């Protein structure tokens, strides 16, 4: 187990180095000159000399690999540079935005879990019943719905027609409900399908027949034995969803005017604010990688046998 985890962490370090290179490349392949963009934003009519001055000041005149190593050194010290847009350290901006996004994502995860588990068990147990078919139709809509549109529909329904929530609201727990549901509904729809299919597959296995033969009640078999064995693929997918939700928050945050990391990234992209773009990319990728690792560790803890089957893949 420990050997497995340390192996995974070694792999993780290689991936993280690749992530920093890629994050840096992404934000550097551009026809827009960030020094010029910065100069135009802050000086009315910048002369070429002023632009050059800014370029040197920001270190943009150095060769790309030197810029990368300078940036990487900073990253290792926890310094992500200074935002060209807000002029705050990127670290400070991110520290301010991340909790807002994480609170939506956290609540959304809660919804996903409490919606997915009971519904998929019910629909797997009553396979081909009316409930199962209805759920299948509902989840087909759920995975086909554009989440920004869902956000608007929820706003129109619950903030305008039935004024339970206010349209622009930030800070209270209540204000989290609509954005988190907007993220959770499509995700829950696809995870219901996955969990239902996995449960059905497991119900055909020998251990279920054996448990039945031992006279264990059907409920106990489903909720304890089958569910436990159906969790590993769910955990993997769920941890991936967490990364998707953080990246996808850009869209939902735009609908609900929510000041999170996603909308921060979009405004940084529009303003060509390189240090902020790099910082956001890095943070989101690190969170994503971290959750993937967490999924593997959780899975190996729940079902150590999987290591011998899938450990080296």
């Amino acid at each position, binding site marked *: 187990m420990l050997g497995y985890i340390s192996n995974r962490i070694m792999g993780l370090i290689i991936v993280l180095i*690749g992530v920093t290179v*890629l994050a840096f490349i992404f934000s550097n392949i551009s026809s827009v000159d960030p020094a010029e963009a910065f100069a135009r934003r802050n000086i009315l009519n910048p002369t070429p000399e002023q632009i050059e001055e800014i370029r040197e000041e920001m270190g943009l005149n150095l060769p790309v690999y030197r810029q990368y190593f300078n940036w990487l050194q900073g990253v290792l010290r926890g310094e992500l540079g200074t935002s060209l847009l807000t002029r705050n350290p990127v670290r400070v901006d991110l520290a301010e935005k991340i909790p807002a996004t994480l609170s939506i994502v956290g609540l959304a995860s809660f919804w996903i879990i409490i919606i997915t588990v009971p519904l998929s068990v019910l629909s797997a147990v009553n396979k081909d019943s009316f409930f199962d078919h209805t759920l299948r139709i509902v989840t087909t809509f759920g995975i086909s719905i554009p989440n*920004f*549109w869902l956000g608007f*529909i929820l706003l129109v329904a619950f903030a305008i027609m039935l004024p339970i929530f206010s349209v622009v609201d930030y800070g209270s727990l209540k204000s989290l409900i609509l954005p988190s549901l907007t993220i959770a509904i499509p995700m829950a729809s696809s995870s219901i399908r996955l969990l239902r299919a996995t449960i059905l597959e497991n119900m055909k296995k020998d251990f279920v027949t054996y448990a039945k033969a031992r006279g264990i009640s059907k409920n106990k078999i489903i909720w304890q034995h089958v569910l436990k064995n159906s969790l590993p693929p769910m955990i993997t997918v769920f941890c991936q969803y967490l990364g998707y939700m953080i990246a996808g928050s850009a869209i939902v945050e735009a609908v609900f005017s929510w000041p999170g990391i996603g909308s921060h990234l979009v405004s940084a992209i529009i303003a060509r604010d390189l240090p902020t773009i790099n910082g956001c990319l890095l943070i*989101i990728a690190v969170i994503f990688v971290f959750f*993937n690792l967490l999924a593997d560790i959780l899975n190996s803890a729940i079902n150590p046998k999987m290591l011998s089957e899938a450990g080296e893949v």
Partner: protein
Amino acid sequence: MVKKILKNKQAVLGLLMILVIAFIAIFAPFIAVNHPEEIDPAEKFAEASLKYPLGTDQLGRCIFSRLIYGARYSLGIAVPVLFILAVVSILTGTISAYIGGGFDRVFTVICDIFMSFPPLLVVLSLVGALGQGIFNIMVAAVFSMWVWFAKVVRSYVLLEKKKGYIIAAKIAGCSDIKIIALHIIPNILPSLLVYFSTGIAGMMLMISGFSFLGLGIEAGVPEWGAMLSSGKAYLYSRPLLLIYPGICILFTAAGFNLFGEALRDIVSPEEV
């Protein structure tokens, strides 16, 4: 397989929905009653009428015609992207899995690095870097998703490679290219088809999400996501401006999802 598809109600329904959208996209100029970008300042927010079947938007443009032309953008972006993705991922995934060894290991590490960015994030940063434009968003979409597809292709090939008939073909002296092109790819194609057809819906949702954010597609273009974005300001007064394009996106994505899932039931019935 065609027979099985026609027997499956869900597949037929999905296919019909896709065909409706494809028909609308192809014959848009004949279906639309007005030009989608024609502005009529005297007719802002007009009610539904014979001239404007669904009324007009904030600039007096015919909503119905814009929705019709939107089908062109939706399919016109998603289908070519998927095609390029399919070619790239089948080539790279098959070659990597077939050669195996160190080459495959390097390929897997590259995949892992790319996969540590959620696709949305890659597209966001690439569109930010390359600038606006439909072509750039297509490049970004291919670039962000190819590894995910390639990895699936790779895993299918790895499974297929071990099977007896491939070994038999090798012993019979079949060349590697022949084995890949004539044996492996035709055999994994049905499973890939399922994966791609469900992938297309996700891609359409992602691309409309981008134009909603104002990235990728120029303002004024009758793309459904962009229409939603410009209708955002009239959330209170004209919620219909938001509802129509959303229904169009939902309809198209649902068509592809229904078809893709029915296809999966047909190709691998044991998973249902």
